[in-house]
């Protein structure tokens, strides 16, 4: 008998705008000792399906219209709230995307770990503590004794996710639901967490549901894959089958969206547009502390028309390099020469003119657009500021930009919140290109987006960079994306360049240990090789 068997589950959201069928008759089963991955983009209903079974969606607006979810033969949908509470956290546990928001910042890790134990199993405090320490050890927290009294903010993202996993496992659940548990993490940390989940699953012989938007992430660990689109299961089955013999066009689209291959490096003469020399950007920490050396003695050139990839994990200083070149942070020492001028010394009007020649595309399109400005206002601002259009012609300029980035013209009066992530990123790209810059820093422009949208935005950026003749610094933690897009790649570690070369050089002949480690962390390596 399957551990969990879902039959024809239907869930709707009832709002003023009408009824929206979020989960439309899906069926699947989860076996003990196997990892079942549910894949789909935002809004496909993958999370709603799992949450609704456990009574975790607010009702109303949510409404379960029908179906059954048999957990060990008992229908979860027929249970009372009290019965569900017994099941949640004891038999079924969950881990979430953002471990920071899921941990109480005012409670020590130890207390939070002991809480479910004291609630669900009637054990003494002493026993609970020992159990919690064992688990912290098991999920790979070094020196659990001394971290037991620490607060969540004292842990890194990866460590917090480990704590979350320990918390989920503490009552020895039979089913673990992991909702995008690695999406907020760096590639190297992601690889570690994925391995941890796979190991724990084997060791404890439990069932796992792994929810993700990214097929590549689950490639190495999933036994079964279910692909969802618009509330329906479009394809499901053995993971080998999905990766090698996918039949449904949507599954194929998802597979195609995994960035693969290497860009052929630019040929012909190379003239540097930007020369970065001995760049240091340090952040002061107050009088008696050592400054944080975010960027430390970095030198490189970016040639005209080239896409230079900058790769590294969080804290490697890759974003700070981009921001230093654009003068968004204060440069401690060194020089950045742009087309013959040292931009680190520019002031006033010179700086303003120079700004129109280099622009930035930000990571989070939800934060990088002013929520109170319409698409029109956002795009018109740079056009008017730099005198590219005047008040009379600005409307046509804005519409031209919208055409270029593939936004329908009738969106012109809408505000950012009315758009999806991908559409917002298009607006942000339009704003960056408004001044016809020669150079663009793209800071993780796709890492906040779903894979299929990622592919679209990357295509758009490639097309536009040809059309506009752009030189680009492409910052990302995702090696596969960078390889797909960049002519040359710089690998950054703790503020310093450790290795550089073409995509093929790095992937096939990595010289440094750190580069090798990065390469091994790429999810689903087999798929992109």
């Amino acid at each position: 008998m399957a551990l969990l068997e879902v039959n024809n589950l239907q869930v709707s959201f009832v709002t003023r705008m009408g009824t929206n069928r979020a989960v439309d008759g899906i069926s699947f089963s989860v076996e003990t000792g196997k990892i079942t991955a549910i894949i789909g983009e935002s809004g496909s209903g993958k999370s709603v399906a799992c949450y609704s079974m456990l009574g975790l969606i607010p009702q109303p607006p949510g409404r379960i219209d029908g179906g059954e979810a048999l957990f060990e033969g008992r229908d979860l949908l027929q249970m009372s709230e009290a019965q569900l509470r017994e099941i949640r956290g004891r038999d079924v546990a969950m881990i979430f995307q953002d471990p920071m928001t899921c941990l109480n910042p005012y409670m020590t890790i130890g207390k939070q770990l002991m809480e479910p134990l004291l609630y669900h199993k009637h054990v003494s405090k002493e026993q609970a503590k020992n159990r919690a320490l064992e688990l912290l050890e098991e999920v790979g927290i070094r020196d659990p004794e001394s971290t037991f009294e620490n607060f969540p903010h004292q842990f890194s993202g990866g460590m917090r996710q480990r704590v979350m996993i320990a918390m989920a496992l503490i009552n020895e659940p039979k089913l673990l639901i992991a909702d995008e548990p690695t999406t907020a993490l760096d590639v190297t940390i992601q690889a570690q967490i994925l391995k941890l989940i796979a190991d724990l699953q084997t060791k404890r012989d439990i069932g796992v549901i792994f929810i993700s938007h990214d097929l590549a992430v689950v490639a190495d660990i999933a036994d079964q894959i279910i692909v969802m689109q618009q509330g329906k299961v479009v394809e499901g089955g053995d993971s080998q089958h999905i990766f090698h013999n996918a039949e449904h066009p949507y599954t194929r689209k998802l597979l195609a969206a995994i960035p693969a291959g290497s860009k052929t490096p630019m040929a012909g003469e190379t003239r540097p547009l930007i020369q970065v020399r001995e760049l240091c950007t340090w952040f002061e920490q107050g009088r008696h502390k050592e400054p944080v050396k975010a960027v430390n003695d970095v030198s490189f050139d970016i040639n005209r028309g080239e896409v230079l990839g900058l790769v590294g994990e969080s804290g490697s200083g890759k974003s700070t390099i981009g921001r230093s070149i654009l003068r968004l942070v204060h440069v401690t020492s060194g020089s950045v020469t742009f087309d013959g001028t040292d931009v680190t010394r520019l002031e006033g009007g010179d700086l303003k003119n120079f700004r129109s020649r280099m622009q930035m595309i930000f990571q989070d399109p939800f934060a990088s657009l002013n929520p109170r400005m319409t698409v029109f206002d956002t795009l018109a601002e740079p056009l008017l500021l730099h005198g590219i259009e005047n008040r009379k012609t600005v409307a046509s300029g804005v519409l031209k930009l919208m055409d270029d980035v593939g936004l329908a013209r009738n969106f012109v009066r809408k505000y950012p919140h009315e758009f999806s992530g991908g559409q917002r990123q298009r607006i942000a790209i339009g704003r960056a290109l408004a001044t016809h810059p020669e150079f663009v820093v793209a800071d993780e422009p796709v890492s906040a987006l779903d894979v299929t949208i990622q592919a679209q935005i990357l295509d758009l950026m490639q097309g536009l960079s040809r059309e506009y003749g752009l030189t680009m610094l492409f910052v990302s933690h995702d090696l596969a994306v960078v390889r797909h897009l960049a002519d040359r790649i710089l690998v950054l570690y703790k503020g310093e360049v450790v290795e550089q070369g073409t995509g093929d050089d790095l992937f096939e002949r990595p010289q440094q240990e750190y580069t090798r480690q990065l390469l091994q962390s790429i999810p689903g390596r087999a798929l992109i090789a």
Partner: protein
Amino acid sequence: MTTEVITDITEAEQGSSLWHDAWLRLRKNKLALFGGITLILFVIIAILTPWIAPYSYETQNLDLGATPPSAAHWLGTDIFGRDLLTQIMYGGRISLAVGFVATSVALIIGISWGAVAGYVGGRVDAAMMRFVDILYALPFMIFIVLLMVVFGRNILLLFLAIGAVEWLTMARIMRSQVQQLRQQEFVEAAISLGLPPSTIIRRHLIPNALGPIIVYTTLTIPSVMLLEAFLSFLGLGIQPPQTSWGLLISYGAETMEEFPWLLIFPGLALTLTLFSLNFLGDGLRDALDVRRSKD
């Protein structure tokens, strides 16, 4: 569809879409509209009072004394036989002026001070906010008494003095809002576009910080009106025969058992103003929050 839109964005879009859209949304909010119209009506009456008031506010009629509302005196008379409607109309001139002028002073100084401190940060911020702290620490009454002693009693000075006290909180609210917003990437994007700091503050920061400011403003106006009454009561504000709502209410409160109408009617005038302000303020806040409604 597409062609229709292209011709559509030439005129109206040139201005700030935010305020245009906010107005469209505000127009649909009946309560806010009611509040706005009531306030405008009160202001018009206040301006026209010298010509439309039924009686003179100074003329006493001691024989008449306090009478309840009648055909000759719609809202009755006070203990000196003065017409209450006339007094409320004249009182409204002072109260509304104090409320709006002092609050405007507070708004202008507070928003600019707080926005600059929050945006620039560092030592400038520290210096600017310590200055605010010093003013906070000054005993407010001594400050006003000093002003009155040095410059003589003067209504305009009263407005300024009240405004000079009320802006402190406004500056603090604004600063904390701007500090949060400054971290957002859209501000970085604005910097990298080459916008000068003044434009960034004006166009990107202030509109996003208005919600709490509007709410606080609707609270400030009534508190300013009551502050004026308090000062006048102490003899620092306006003096009889001039009057204000605050003064009328405090006198009315003394005789409320014998002559309740002397408290009820001025109280009603003030209450109606406050309701209108709150409705308008809530409406404005919602209208400026583009995320709230989708039409």
